[in-house]
Protein backbone atom coordinates (compact mmCIF):
# COMPACT_ATOMS: atom_id res chain seq x y z
CA UNK A 1 0.00 0.00 0.00
CA UNK A 2 1.44 3.34 -0.92
CA UNK A 3 0.78 5.92 1.77
CA UNK A 4 1.60 8.80 -0.54
CA UNK A 5 -1.56 8.46 -2.58
CA UNK A 6 -3.98 8.33 0.32
CA UNK A 7 -5.63 11.42 1.74
CA UNK A 8 -4.38 12.09 5.26
CA UNK A 9 -7.10 12.01 7.91
CA UNK A 10 -5.79 15.23 9.31
CA UNK A 11 -3.23 17.52 7.81
CA UNK A 12 -1.70 20.71 9.15
CA UNK A 13 -0.29 23.25 6.74
CA UNK A 14 1.83 26.03 8.17
CA UNK A 15 -0.16 26.38 11.39
CA UNK A 16 0.68 29.49 13.40
CA UNK A 17 -0.76 30.55 16.72
CA UNK A 18 0.33 33.76 18.40
CA UNK A 19 -0.52 35.00 21.89
CA UNK A 20 -0.07 38.46 23.26
CA UNK A 21 1.98 38.40 26.41
CA UNK A 22 2.71 41.37 28.62
CA UNK A 23 5.90 41.23 30.59
CA UNK A 24 6.19 42.96 33.92
CA UNK A 25 4.10 45.85 35.15
CA UNK A 26 4.76 48.38 32.43
CA UNK A 27 5.87 46.17 29.60
CA UNK A 28 4.33 46.30 26.17
CA UNK A 29 2.34 43.38 24.87
CA UNK A 30 4.65 41.26 22.77
CA UNK A 31 3.38 38.61 20.38
CA UNK A 32 4.50 35.12 21.30
CA UNK A 33 4.41 32.47 18.63
CA UNK A 34 3.32 29.40 20.59
CA UNK A 35 2.97 27.38 17.40
CA UNK A 36 5.21 28.60 14.63
CA UNK A 37 4.57 27.08 11.24
CA UNK A 38 3.71 23.43 11.78
CA UNK A 39 3.21 20.99 8.91
CA UNK A 40 2.12 17.45 9.66
CA UNK A 41 -0.02 14.61 8.40
CA UNK A 42 -1.77 11.80 10.20
CA UNK A 43 -3.04 8.90 8.11
CA UNK A 44 -6.20 7.01 9.06
CA UNK A 45 -5.46 4.54 11.82
CA UNK A 46 -1.99 5.94 12.41
CA UNK A 47 -0.60 7.22 15.69
CA UNK A 48 1.55 10.31 15.71
CA UNK A 49 3.39 11.03 18.93
CA UNK A 50 4.27 14.64 19.76
CA UNK A 51 6.95 15.15 22.39
CA UNK A 52 8.38 18.32 23.81
CA UNK A 53 8.91 20.18 27.05
CA UNK A 54 6.68 22.85 28.59
CA UNK A 55 6.49 25.86 26.31
CA UNK A 56 7.09 23.78 23.19
CA UNK A 57 3.55 24.48 22.00
CA UNK A 58 2.55 20.81 21.84
CA UNK A 59 -0.75 21.28 23.71
CA UNK A 60 -1.67 24.33 21.63
CA UNK A 61 -0.96 22.32 18.51
CA UNK A 62 -3.30 19.59 19.75
CA UNK A 63 -6.13 22.06 20.23
CA UNK A 64 -5.45 23.59 16.82
CA UNK A 65 -5.72 20.21 15.11
CA UNK A 66 -9.26 19.97 16.50
CA UNK A 67 -10.12 23.54 15.54
CA UNK A 68 -10.59 24.55 19.19
CA UNK A 69 -7.79 27.08 18.84
CA UNK A 70 -8.14 28.71 15.42
CA UNK A 71 -4.85 29.34 13.62
CA UNK A 72 -3.74 32.86 12.67
CA UNK A 73 -1.96 31.51 9.65
CA UNK A 74 -2.12 28.20 7.82
CA UNK A 75 -4.92 25.70 8.03
CA UNK A 76 -5.91 22.30 9.28
CA UNK A 77 -7.55 19.89 6.84
CA UNK A 78 -9.75 17.02 7.98
CA UNK A 79 -10.10 14.33 5.30
CA UNK A 80 -8.78 16.85 2.80
CA UNK A 81 -11.37 19.50 3.60
CA UNK A 82 -10.63 22.72 5.52
CA UNK A 83 -11.62 22.73 9.17
CA UNK A 84 -14.90 24.64 9.69
CA UNK A 85 -14.90 27.62 12.02
CA UNK A 86 -15.10 27.03 15.77
CA UNK A 87 -18.65 26.56 17.17
CA UNK A 88 -20.40 26.49 13.79
CA UNK A 89 -22.86 23.60 13.18
CA UNK A 90 -20.41 22.10 10.66
CA UNK A 91 -17.63 22.15 13.23
CA UNK A 92 -19.90 20.55 15.84
CA UNK A 93 -20.83 17.81 13.40
CA UNK A 94 -17.16 17.22 12.71
CA UNK A 95 -16.37 17.10 16.44
CA UNK A 96 -18.17 13.75 16.61
CA UNK A 97 -15.40 12.40 14.39
CA UNK A 98 -12.55 13.87 16.40
CA UNK A 99 -12.30 13.72 20.15
CA UNK A 100 -10.01 15.09 22.81
CA UNK A 101 -8.66 13.37 25.94
CA UNK A 102 -7.01 15.58 28.55
CA UNK A 103 -4.49 14.86 31.25
CA UNK A 104 -6.82 15.51 34.16
CA UNK A 105 -9.88 13.29 33.92
CA UNK A 106 -11.49 14.76 37.02
CA UNK A 107 -11.61 18.18 35.36
CA UNK A 108 -12.97 16.67 32.14
CA UNK A 109 -15.84 14.94 33.91
CA UNK A 110 -18.93 16.50 35.43
CA UNK A 111 -18.92 15.59 39.09
CA UNK A 112 -22.71 15.69 39.36
CA UNK A 113 -23.39 13.04 36.72
CA UNK A 114 -22.75 9.31 36.88
CA UNK A 115 -20.14 8.03 34.47
CA UNK A 116 -22.74 6.09 32.48
CA UNK A 117 -24.70 9.32 31.93
CA UNK A 118 -21.54 11.07 30.79
CA UNK A 119 -20.48 8.29 28.46
CA UNK A 120 -23.98 8.38 26.94
CA UNK A 121 -23.94 12.16 26.52
CA UNK A 122 -22.28 12.30 23.07
CA UNK A 123 -24.79 9.71 21.84
CA UNK A 124 -27.60 12.09 22.71
CA UNK A 125 -25.87 15.28 21.57
CA UNK A 126 -25.00 13.98 18.14
CA UNK A 127 -28.14 11.83 18.11
CA UNK A 128 -26.09 8.83 17.10
CA UNK A 129 -27.99 6.02 18.73
CA UNK A 130 -31.77 5.87 19.18
CA UNK A 131 -32.72 6.27 22.81
CA UNK A 132 -33.77 2.66 23.54
CA UNK A 133 -30.38 1.35 22.40
CA UNK A 134 -28.28 3.88 24.23
CA UNK A 135 -27.97 1.86 27.40
CA UNK A 136 -26.60 -1.12 25.51
CA UNK A 137 -24.10 1.06 23.68
CA UNK A 138 -22.92 2.63 26.96
CA UNK A 139 -22.44 -0.86 28.41
CA UNK A 140 -20.45 -1.84 25.32
CA UNK A 141 -18.25 1.23 25.62
CA UNK A 142 -17.66 0.62 29.31
CA UNK A 143 -16.58 -2.94 28.74
CA UNK A 144 -14.36 -1.81 25.84
CA UNK A 145 -12.37 0.42 28.18
CA UNK A 146 -12.36 -2.13 30.98
CA UNK A 147 -14.92 -0.64 33.34
CA UNK A 148 -17.17 -3.04 35.20
CA UNK A 149 -20.97 -2.85 34.65
CA UNK A 150 -21.48 -2.19 38.37
CA UNK A 151 -19.44 1.04 38.04
CA UNK A 152 -22.03 2.60 35.69
CA UNK A 153 -23.82 4.41 38.49
CA UNK A 154 -20.66 5.75 40.12
CA UNK A 155 -19.76 9.42 40.24
CA UNK A 156 -16.29 10.56 39.12
CA UNK A 157 -15.02 11.10 42.67
CA UNK A 158 -15.90 7.51 43.56
CA UNK A 159 -13.46 6.17 40.96
CA UNK A 160 -9.67 5.94 40.94
CA UNK A 161 -7.60 8.08 38.59
CA UNK A 162 -7.17 5.25 36.13
CA UNK A 163 -10.87 4.43 36.10
CA UNK A 164 -11.75 8.05 35.51
CA UNK A 165 -9.43 8.23 32.54
CA UNK A 166 -11.09 5.07 31.21
CA UNK A 167 -14.47 6.78 31.53
CA UNK A 168 -13.18 9.84 29.66
CA UNK A 169 -11.85 7.60 26.90
CA UNK A 170 -15.14 5.69 26.71
CA UNK A 171 -16.97 8.98 26.31
CA UNK A 172 -14.55 10.04 23.59
CA UNK A 173 -15.15 6.76 21.79
CA UNK A 174 -18.95 7.00 22.02
CA UNK A 175 -19.29 8.93 18.76
CA UNK A 176 -17.02 6.42 16.95
CA UNK A 177 -14.38 9.04 16.18
CA UNK A 178 -11.80 8.67 13.44
CA UNK A 179 -9.30 10.80 15.33
CA UNK A 180 -8.38 10.94 18.99
CA UNK A 181 -6.14 13.76 20.23
CA UNK A 182 -4.74 12.77 23.64
CA UNK A 183 -2.88 15.42 25.65
CA UNK A 184 -0.79 13.73 28.35
CA UNK A 185 -3.54 11.15 28.97
CA UNK A 186 -1.50 8.92 31.29
CA UNK A 187 0.89 11.39 32.89
CA UNK A 188 -1.08 11.66 36.11
CA UNK A 189 -1.37 7.89 36.54
CA UNK A 190 0.84 5.49 38.46
CA UNK A 191 3.18 3.28 36.44
CA UNK A 192 1.14 0.10 36.84
CA UNK A 193 -2.10 1.85 35.89
CA UNK A 194 -0.41 3.79 33.11
CA UNK A 195 0.51 0.48 31.46
CA UNK A 196 -3.12 -0.65 31.68
CA UNK A 197 -4.41 2.49 29.97
CA UNK A 198 -1.68 2.50 27.30
CA UNK A 199 -2.45 -1.12 26.40
CA UNK A 200 -6.14 -0.35 26.30
CA UNK A 201 -5.61 2.62 23.98
CA UNK A 202 -3.51 0.49 21.66
CA UNK A 203 -6.12 -2.26 21.55
CA UNK A 204 -9.00 0.12 20.93
CA UNK A 205 -7.11 1.86 18.21
CA UNK A 206 -6.25 -1.32 16.36
CA UNK A 207 -9.76 -2.68 16.69
CA UNK A 208 -11.56 0.48 15.59
CA UNK A 209 -8.92 1.84 13.21
CA UNK A 210 -8.75 5.18 14.98
CA UNK A 211 -5.99 7.64 14.19
CA UNK A 212 -4.38 9.19 17.21
CA UNK A 213 -2.29 12.23 18.06
CA UNK A 214 -0.58 11.37 21.33
CA UNK A 215 0.96 14.38 23.06
CA UNK A 216 3.29 13.65 25.96
CA UNK A 217 6.51 14.62 27.65
CA UNK A 218 7.16 10.95 28.46
CA UNK A 219 9.35 9.53 25.71
CA UNK A 220 8.99 5.95 26.89
CA UNK A 221 5.20 6.01 26.66
CA UNK A 222 5.26 7.77 23.30
CA UNK A 223 7.68 5.27 21.88
CA UNK A 224 5.44 2.45 22.98
CA UNK A 225 2.24 3.81 21.50
CA UNK A 226 3.20 5.91 18.45
CA UNK A 227 4.06 4.84 14.93
CA UNK A 228 5.69 8.13 14.15
CA UNK A 229 7.05 10.80 16.47
CA UNK A 230 7.49 14.55 16.04
CA UNK A 231 9.76 16.39 18.47
CA UNK A 232 8.82 20.01 19.17
CA UNK A 233 10.99 22.81 20.48
CA UNK A 234 9.66 26.35 20.92
CA UNK A 235 6.69 25.99 18.60
CA UNK A 236 8.44 24.15 15.79
CA UNK A 237 9.00 20.55 14.83
CA UNK A 238 12.73 19.90 14.96
CA UNK A 239 12.71 16.24 14.03
CA UNK A 240 10.21 13.68 12.81
CA UNK A 241 10.68 9.98 12.16
CA UNK A 242 9.23 6.58 12.91
CA UNK A 243 9.29 5.83 16.61
CA UNK A 244 11.59 2.87 16.09
CA UNK A 245 14.41 4.92 14.62
CA UNK A 246 13.98 8.31 16.26
CA UNK A 247 14.83 7.08 19.75
CA UNK A 248 17.45 4.60 18.58
CA UNK A 249 19.37 7.00 16.36
CA UNK A 250 18.24 10.54 17.10
CA UNK A 251 19.73 13.07 14.68
CA UNK A 252 18.78 16.49 16.02
CA UNK A 253 20.93 17.46 19.03
CA UNK A 254 17.79 18.31 20.98
CA UNK A 255 16.27 14.88 20.37
CA UNK A 256 19.60 13.37 21.37
CA UNK A 257 19.54 15.27 24.64
CA UNK A 258 15.91 14.32 25.29
CA UNK A 259 16.60 10.64 24.72
CA UNK A 260 19.70 10.85 26.84
CA UNK A 261 17.84 12.53 29.70
CA UNK A 262 15.55 9.53 30.22
CA UNK A 263 16.93 7.61 33.16
CA UNK A 264 17.23 3.93 32.36
CA UNK A 265 16.25 1.70 35.28
CA UNK A 266 19.17 -0.23 36.71
CA UNK A 267 21.81 1.83 34.96
CA UNK A 268 23.94 4.46 36.59
CA UNK A 269 24.35 7.88 35.13
CA UNK A 270 27.09 7.56 32.55
CA UNK A 271 27.94 9.28 29.31
CA UNK A 272 24.67 11.16 29.27
CA UNK A 273 24.23 14.39 27.39
CA UNK A 274 22.93 16.81 29.97
CA UNK A 275 21.75 20.02 28.41
CA UNK A 276 22.79 23.25 30.03
CA UNK A 277 20.28 26.00 30.60
CA UNK A 278 16.52 26.05 30.49
CA UNK A 279 14.16 26.06 27.54
CA UNK A 280 14.03 29.75 26.55
CA UNK A 281 10.90 31.79 27.02
CA UNK A 282 8.81 31.69 23.81
CA UNK A 283 8.43 35.47 24.18
CA UNK A 284 12.17 35.82 23.85
CA UNK A 285 13.01 33.50 21.02
CA UNK A 286 16.70 33.21 20.17
CA UNK A 287 17.71 34.22 16.68
CA UNK A 288 18.43 31.63 14.01
CA UNK A 289 17.89 28.13 15.34
CA UNK A 290 15.96 28.54 18.61
CA UNK A 291 17.96 25.70 20.14
CA UNK A 292 21.41 27.16 19.46
CA UNK A 293 22.08 28.64 22.95
CA UNK A 294 21.81 25.15 24.48
CA UNK A 295 23.26 23.22 21.57
CA UNK A 296 26.68 21.57 21.84
CA UNK A 297 27.11 21.66 18.04
CA UNK A 298 26.05 25.26 17.40
CA UNK A 299 28.06 27.05 14.71
CA UNK A 300 27.82 30.58 13.31
CA UNK A 301 25.13 29.70 10.81
CA UNK A 302 22.88 28.45 13.66
CA UNK A 303 22.84 31.91 15.24
CA UNK A 304 21.76 33.68 12.10
CA UNK A 305 19.66 31.40 9.95
CA UNK A 306 16.59 29.37 10.85
CA UNK A 307 17.05 25.73 9.78
CA UNK A 308 14.22 24.31 7.69
CA UNK A 309 12.63 20.95 8.34
CA UNK A 310 14.21 18.90 5.54
CA UNK A 311 14.07 15.29 4.56
CA UNK A 312 17.26 13.57 5.66
CA UNK A 313 16.32 9.98 4.93
CA UNK A 314 13.29 8.06 3.79
CA UNK A 315 10.36 9.13 5.99
CA UNK A 316 12.62 11.14 8.21
CA UNK A 317 13.00 14.90 8.59
CA UNK A 318 15.12 17.16 10.75
CA UNK A 319 15.57 20.90 11.17
CA UNK A 320 19.25 21.32 11.94
CA UNK A 321 22.03 22.89 9.90
CA UNK A 322 24.55 20.43 11.27
CA UNK A 323 22.47 17.36 10.52
CA UNK A 324 21.41 18.34 7.00
CA UNK A 325 25.00 19.31 6.20
CA UNK A 326 26.31 15.96 7.46
CA UNK A 327 23.67 14.06 5.50
CA UNK A 328 24.55 16.05 2.39
CA UNK A 329 28.23 15.19 2.73
CA UNK A 330 27.34 11.52 3.18
CA UNK A 331 25.24 11.66 0.03
CA UNK A 332 28.09 13.35 -1.83
Amino acid at each position, binding site marked *: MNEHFKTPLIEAKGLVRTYEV*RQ*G*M*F*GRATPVRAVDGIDLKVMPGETLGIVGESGSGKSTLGRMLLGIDPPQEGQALFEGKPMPKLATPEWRALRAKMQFVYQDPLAALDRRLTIAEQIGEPLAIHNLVPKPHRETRVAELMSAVGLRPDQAGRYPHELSGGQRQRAVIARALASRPKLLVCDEPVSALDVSIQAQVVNMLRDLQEKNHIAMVFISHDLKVVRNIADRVAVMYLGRIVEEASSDVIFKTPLHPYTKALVSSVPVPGKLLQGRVILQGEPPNPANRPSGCAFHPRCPLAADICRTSVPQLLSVADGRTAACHMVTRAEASVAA
Partner: protein
Amino acid sequence: MFRFASIRLLRALITILAVITFAFVVLRLSGDPAQVMLGPDVPQESVDAFRKAWGLDQPLWIQYLSYIRAIFTGDFGVSMRDKASAMQLVIERIPATLQLTIPALFLKVVIGIPAGVYAALHRQSAIDRGVILAAIFGFTIPSFVMGLLLVLIFSITLGLLPSGGQDTWQHGILPTLTMSIGGIGILARFSRSAMIEVMGQPYIRTASAKGMKWQDVVWKHALPNAAVPIVTIVGFMVGTLIAGAVVVESIFSWPGIGRLLVVSVSNRDLAVVQCILLLVAATMVVSNLIVDLLYGFLDPRLRAQSAH
Protein backbone atom coordinates in the same frame (compact mmCIF):
# COMPACT_ATOMS: atom_id res chain seq x y z
CA MET B 1 4.30 53.69 37.70
CA PHE B 2 2.88 56.95 36.38
CA ARG B 3 0.63 55.16 33.89
CA PHE B 4 -0.61 52.81 36.60
CA ALA B 5 -1.35 55.66 39.02
CA SER B 6 -3.11 57.82 36.44
CA ILE B 7 -5.34 54.97 35.28
CA ARG B 8 -6.33 54.30 38.88
CA LEU B 9 -6.99 57.98 39.53
CA LEU B 10 -9.16 58.33 36.44
CA ARG B 11 -11.10 55.25 37.42
CA ALA B 12 -11.62 56.71 40.92
CA LEU B 13 -12.95 60.01 39.51
CA ILE B 14 -15.37 58.20 37.22
CA THR B 15 -16.66 56.17 40.17
CA ILE B 16 -17.29 59.33 42.21
CA LEU B 17 -18.99 61.02 39.28
CA ALA B 18 -21.26 58.02 38.80
CA VAL B 19 -22.26 58.08 42.47
CA ILE B 20 -23.11 61.77 42.58
CA THR B 21 -24.99 61.60 39.28
CA PHE B 22 -27.04 58.71 40.53
CA ALA B 23 -27.72 60.50 43.81
CA PHE B 24 -28.68 63.68 41.98
CA VAL B 25 -31.21 62.00 39.73
CA VAL B 26 -32.75 59.73 42.35
CA LEU B 27 -33.13 62.53 44.90
CA ARG B 28 -34.88 64.78 42.42
CA LEU B 29 -37.23 62.06 41.27
CA SER B 30 -38.17 60.92 44.74
CA GLY B 31 -40.10 63.92 46.01
CA ASP B 32 -40.45 67.66 45.90
CA PRO B 33 -38.31 69.50 48.48
CA ALA B 34 -40.66 72.48 48.36
CA GLN B 35 -43.61 70.40 49.50
CA VAL B 36 -41.60 68.75 52.26
CA MET B 37 -39.88 71.89 53.50
CA LEU B 38 -42.88 74.18 53.44
CA GLY B 39 -45.55 71.73 54.53
CA PRO B 40 -48.80 70.80 52.80
CA ASP B 41 -50.86 73.91 53.51
CA VAL B 42 -48.80 76.74 52.00
CA PRO B 43 -50.11 78.74 49.04
CA GLN B 44 -48.93 77.90 45.54
CA GLU B 45 -47.09 81.29 45.23
CA SER B 46 -44.79 80.40 48.14
CA VAL B 47 -44.02 77.02 46.61
CA ASP B 48 -43.21 78.64 43.26
CA ALA B 49 -41.05 81.25 44.93
CA PHE B 50 -39.18 78.51 46.84
CA ARG B 51 -38.62 76.57 43.63
CA LYS B 52 -37.38 79.61 41.80
CA ALA B 53 -35.08 80.59 44.64
CA TRP B 54 -33.43 77.12 44.67
CA GLY B 55 -33.41 76.73 40.91
CA LEU B 56 -35.80 73.80 41.03
CA ASP B 57 -37.91 75.29 38.25
CA GLN B 58 -35.11 74.69 35.76
CA PRO B 59 -34.99 71.52 33.60
CA LEU B 60 -33.19 68.66 35.32
CA TRP B 61 -30.18 68.63 33.02
CA ILE B 62 -29.53 72.36 33.54
CA GLN B 63 -29.73 71.86 37.30
CA TYR B 64 -27.29 68.98 36.94
CA LEU B 65 -24.80 70.93 34.85
CA SER B 66 -24.77 73.89 37.21
CA TYR B 67 -24.41 71.49 40.15
CA ILE B 68 -21.34 69.83 38.54
CA ARG B 69 -19.89 73.21 37.57
CA ALA B 70 -20.32 74.42 41.14
CA ILE B 71 -18.59 71.33 42.55
CA PHE B 72 -15.55 72.00 40.41
CA THR B 73 -15.34 75.51 41.82
CA GLY B 74 -15.58 74.14 45.36
CA ASP B 75 -19.18 75.15 45.93
CA PHE B 76 -21.14 72.25 47.36
CA GLY B 77 -24.43 74.09 47.74
CA VAL B 78 -26.42 75.48 50.62
CA SER B 79 -28.70 73.63 52.98
CA MET B 80 -32.33 74.44 52.26
CA ARG B 81 -33.15 74.11 55.93
CA ASP B 82 -30.31 75.86 57.72
CA LYS B 83 -29.36 78.19 54.84
CA ALA B 84 -25.76 77.38 55.75
CA SER B 85 -23.05 75.89 53.52
CA ALA B 86 -23.90 72.20 53.11
CA MET B 87 -20.27 71.12 53.24
CA GLN B 88 -19.81 73.11 56.43
CA LEU B 89 -22.74 71.30 58.04
CA VAL B 90 -21.38 67.93 57.00
CA ILE B 91 -17.82 68.64 58.09
CA GLU B 92 -19.02 69.73 61.53
CA ARG B 93 -20.56 66.32 62.02
CA ILE B 94 -17.52 64.29 60.95
CA PRO B 95 -15.70 64.28 64.31
CA ALA B 96 -18.72 62.90 66.12
CA THR B 97 -18.99 60.01 63.68
CA LEU B 98 -15.29 59.29 63.76
CA GLN B 99 -15.47 59.21 67.56
CA LEU B 100 -17.56 56.07 67.11
CA THR B 101 -16.22 54.51 63.93
CA ILE B 102 -12.49 54.76 64.63
CA PRO B 103 -12.63 53.04 68.04
CA ALA B 104 -15.01 50.50 66.49
CA LEU B 105 -12.56 49.81 63.65
CA PHE B 106 -9.78 49.52 66.20
CA LEU B 107 -11.76 46.92 68.16
CA LYS B 108 -12.60 44.98 65.00
CA VAL B 109 -8.94 44.77 64.01
CA VAL B 110 -7.38 44.04 67.40
CA ILE B 111 -10.01 41.50 68.43
CA GLY B 112 -11.20 40.03 65.12
CA ILE B 113 -7.86 39.27 63.45
CA PRO B 114 -6.08 37.72 66.44
CA ALA B 115 -9.16 35.67 67.32
CA GLY B 116 -9.38 34.33 63.77
CA VAL B 117 -5.67 33.60 63.52
CA TYR B 118 -5.62 31.91 66.90
CA ALA B 119 -8.62 29.78 65.97
CA ALA B 120 -6.95 28.77 62.69
CA LEU B 121 -3.79 27.69 64.50
CA HIS B 122 -5.76 25.67 67.03
CA ARG B 123 -8.32 24.06 64.77
CA GLN B 124 -10.95 21.83 66.31
CA SER B 125 -10.06 23.08 69.78
CA ALA B 126 -12.70 24.44 72.14
CA ILE B 127 -11.45 27.97 71.50
CA ASP B 128 -11.76 27.48 67.73
CA ARG B 129 -15.35 26.35 68.08
CA GLY B 130 -16.05 29.23 70.44
CA VAL B 131 -14.63 31.72 67.96
CA ILE B 132 -16.67 30.32 65.08
CA LEU B 133 -19.85 30.40 67.14
CA ALA B 134 -19.23 33.93 68.39
CA ALA B 135 -18.35 35.10 64.89
CA ILE B 136 -21.55 33.74 63.41
CA PHE B 137 -23.52 35.25 66.28
CA GLY B 138 -21.74 38.57 65.75
CA PHE B 139 -22.34 39.07 62.08
CA THR B 140 -25.76 37.50 61.71
CA ILE B 141 -27.47 39.77 64.24
CA PRO B 142 -28.31 43.10 62.58
CA SER B 143 -26.97 46.18 64.33
CA PHE B 144 -30.39 47.58 65.22
CA VAL B 145 -31.20 44.37 67.11
CA MET B 146 -27.74 44.27 68.65
CA GLY B 147 -28.01 47.91 69.71
CA LEU B 148 -31.39 47.42 71.35
CA LEU B 149 -30.16 44.25 73.03
CA LEU B 150 -27.17 46.07 74.53
CA VAL B 151 -29.38 48.93 75.69
CA LEU B 152 -31.72 46.43 77.30
CA ILE B 153 -28.88 44.74 79.16
CA PHE B 154 -26.51 47.57 80.08
CA SER B 155 -28.83 50.55 80.37
CA ILE B 156 -32.19 49.25 81.39
CA THR B 157 -31.44 46.06 83.34
CA LEU B 158 -28.01 46.82 84.79
CA GLY B 159 -28.21 50.62 84.62
CA LEU B 160 -24.48 50.84 83.94
CA LEU B 161 -24.35 52.89 80.76
CA PRO B 162 -26.40 55.67 79.16
CA SER B 163 -28.64 54.66 76.30
CA GLY B 164 -28.37 57.77 74.16
CA GLY B 165 -26.72 61.17 73.66
CA GLN B 166 -23.15 62.36 73.43
CA ASP B 167 -22.42 64.04 76.74
CA THR B 168 -19.65 61.89 78.25
CA TRP B 169 -17.26 59.24 77.02
CA GLN B 170 -19.50 56.59 78.60
CA HIS B 171 -22.15 57.57 76.06
CA GLY B 172 -19.89 56.31 73.31
CA ILE B 173 -19.40 52.81 74.71
CA LEU B 174 -22.64 51.15 73.65
CA PRO B 175 -22.74 52.54 70.09
CA THR B 176 -19.09 51.63 69.56
CA LEU B 177 -19.70 48.11 70.84
CA THR B 178 -22.80 47.73 68.68
CA MET B 179 -20.87 48.75 65.63
CA SER B 180 -17.80 46.63 66.27
CA ILE B 181 -19.39 43.28 67.12
CA GLY B 182 -20.47 42.46 63.57
CA GLY B 183 -17.11 43.53 62.14
CA ILE B 184 -15.22 41.50 64.72
CA GLY B 185 -17.19 38.45 63.65
CA ILE B 186 -16.54 39.06 59.96
CA LEU B 187 -12.84 39.69 60.44
CA ALA B 188 -12.46 36.69 62.74
CA ARG B 189 -14.07 34.43 60.21
CA PHE B 190 -12.06 35.78 57.27
CA SER B 191 -8.78 35.73 59.16
CA ARG B 192 -9.46 32.18 60.26
CA SER B 193 -10.16 30.88 56.78
CA ALA B 194 -7.29 32.86 55.22
CA MET B 195 -4.91 31.49 57.82
CA ILE B 196 -6.15 27.91 57.48
CA GLU B 197 -5.64 28.11 53.74
CA VAL B 198 -2.12 29.49 54.10
CA MET B 199 -1.10 26.99 56.78
CA GLY B 200 -1.91 24.18 54.38
CA GLN B 201 0.42 25.50 51.67
CA PRO B 202 3.61 23.66 50.75
CA TYR B 203 5.82 26.65 51.58
CA ILE B 204 4.72 26.51 55.19
CA ARG B 205 5.86 22.89 55.30
CA THR B 206 9.14 24.04 53.75
CA ALA B 207 9.58 26.68 56.44
CA SER B 208 9.01 24.08 59.17
CA ALA B 209 11.28 21.61 57.40
CA LYS B 210 14.19 24.03 57.48
CA GLY B 211 14.01 24.15 61.24
CA MET B 212 12.28 27.47 61.87
CA LYS B 213 10.61 27.93 65.20
CA TRP B 214 6.86 27.49 65.10
CA GLN B 215 6.24 31.14 66.04
CA ASP B 216 8.54 32.31 63.27
CA VAL B 217 6.79 30.10 60.75
CA VAL B 218 3.50 31.72 61.73
CA TRP B 219 4.74 35.31 61.98
CA LYS B 220 7.26 35.48 59.18
CA HIS B 221 5.89 33.01 56.64
CA ALA B 222 2.17 32.52 57.19
CA LEU B 223 0.86 35.93 58.26
CA PRO B 224 2.33 37.92 55.34
CA ASN B 225 0.54 35.55 52.98
CA ALA B 226 -2.74 35.62 54.88
CA ALA B 227 -2.59 39.43 54.92
CA VAL B 228 -3.92 39.91 51.39
CA PRO B 229 -7.49 38.70 51.98
CA ILE B 230 -7.57 40.25 55.46
CA VAL B 231 -6.45 43.63 54.14
CA THR B 232 -9.28 43.52 51.61
CA ILE B 233 -11.86 43.31 54.38
CA VAL B 234 -10.17 45.89 56.59
CA GLY B 235 -9.97 48.21 53.59
CA PHE B 236 -13.68 47.86 53.05
CA MET B 237 -14.23 48.70 56.72
CA VAL B 238 -12.06 51.80 56.43
CA GLY B 239 -14.23 52.82 53.49
CA THR B 240 -17.30 52.80 55.73
CA LEU B 241 -15.75 54.99 58.45
CA ILE B 242 -17.87 57.98 57.40
CA ALA B 243 -21.12 56.31 56.46
CA GLY B 244 -21.11 53.15 58.52
CA ALA B 245 -22.91 54.51 61.52
CA VAL B 246 -26.32 55.50 60.10
CA VAL B 247 -28.34 52.93 62.03
CA VAL B 248 -26.31 53.06 65.22
CA GLU B 249 -26.31 56.89 65.38
CA SER B 250 -30.07 56.82 64.98
CA ILE B 251 -30.54 54.27 67.77
CA PHE B 252 -28.27 56.08 70.21
CA SER B 253 -29.20 59.65 69.08
CA TRP B 254 -25.59 60.35 68.26
CA PRO B 255 -25.24 63.61 66.34
CA GLY B 256 -22.98 62.34 63.55
CA ILE B 257 -23.09 62.10 59.77
CA GLY B 258 -25.51 59.21 59.85
CA ARG B 259 -28.10 61.12 61.78
CA LEU B 260 -27.60 64.15 59.54
CA LEU B 261 -28.16 61.93 56.51
CA VAL B 262 -31.39 60.49 57.85
CA VAL B 263 -32.75 63.92 58.74
CA SER B 264 -31.67 65.47 55.45
CA VAL B 265 -33.16 62.69 53.37
CA SER B 266 -36.52 62.96 55.08
CA ASN B 267 -36.41 66.76 54.61
CA ARG B 268 -35.29 66.45 51.00
CA ASP B 269 -32.38 68.74 51.87
CA LEU B 270 -30.74 68.03 48.54
CA ALA B 271 -27.40 69.80 48.90
CA VAL B 272 -26.65 68.14 52.25
CA VAL B 273 -27.53 64.63 51.08
CA GLN B 274 -25.44 65.08 47.96
CA CYS B 275 -22.54 66.34 50.00
CA ILE B 276 -22.65 63.31 52.30
CA LEU B 277 -22.87 60.88 49.41
CA LEU B 278 -19.94 62.58 47.71
CA LEU B 279 -17.90 62.27 50.86
CA VAL B 280 -18.89 58.62 51.31
CA ALA B 281 -17.97 57.79 47.72
CA ALA B 282 -14.67 59.59 48.10
CA THR B 283 -13.67 57.69 51.26
CA MET B 284 -14.64 54.39 49.63
CA VAL B 285 -12.61 55.16 46.56
CA VAL B 286 -9.61 56.33 48.54
CA SER B 287 -9.61 53.28 50.79
CA ASN B 288 -9.89 51.04 47.72
CA LEU B 289 -6.92 52.78 46.20
CA ILE B 290 -4.89 52.27 49.36
CA VAL B 291 -5.86 48.59 49.45
CA ASP B 292 -4.74 48.15 45.85
CA LEU B 293 -1.41 49.74 46.57
CA LEU B 294 -1.05 47.55 49.67
CA TYR B 295 -1.67 44.44 47.56
CA GLY B 296 1.35 45.22 45.47
CA PHE B 297 3.35 45.78 48.62
CA LEU B 298 2.16 42.54 50.24
CA ASP B 299 2.33 40.21 47.26
CA PRO B 300 5.04 40.63 44.63
CA ARG B 301 3.07 38.48 42.18
CA LEU B 302 0.27 41.08 42.12
CA ARG B 303 2.82 43.80 41.41
CA ALA B 304 3.49 42.24 38.05
CA GLN B 305 -0.17 41.62 37.26
CA SER B 306 -1.78 44.89 38.24
CA ALA B 307 -0.83 46.53 34.95
CA HIS B 308 -3.02 44.16 32.97
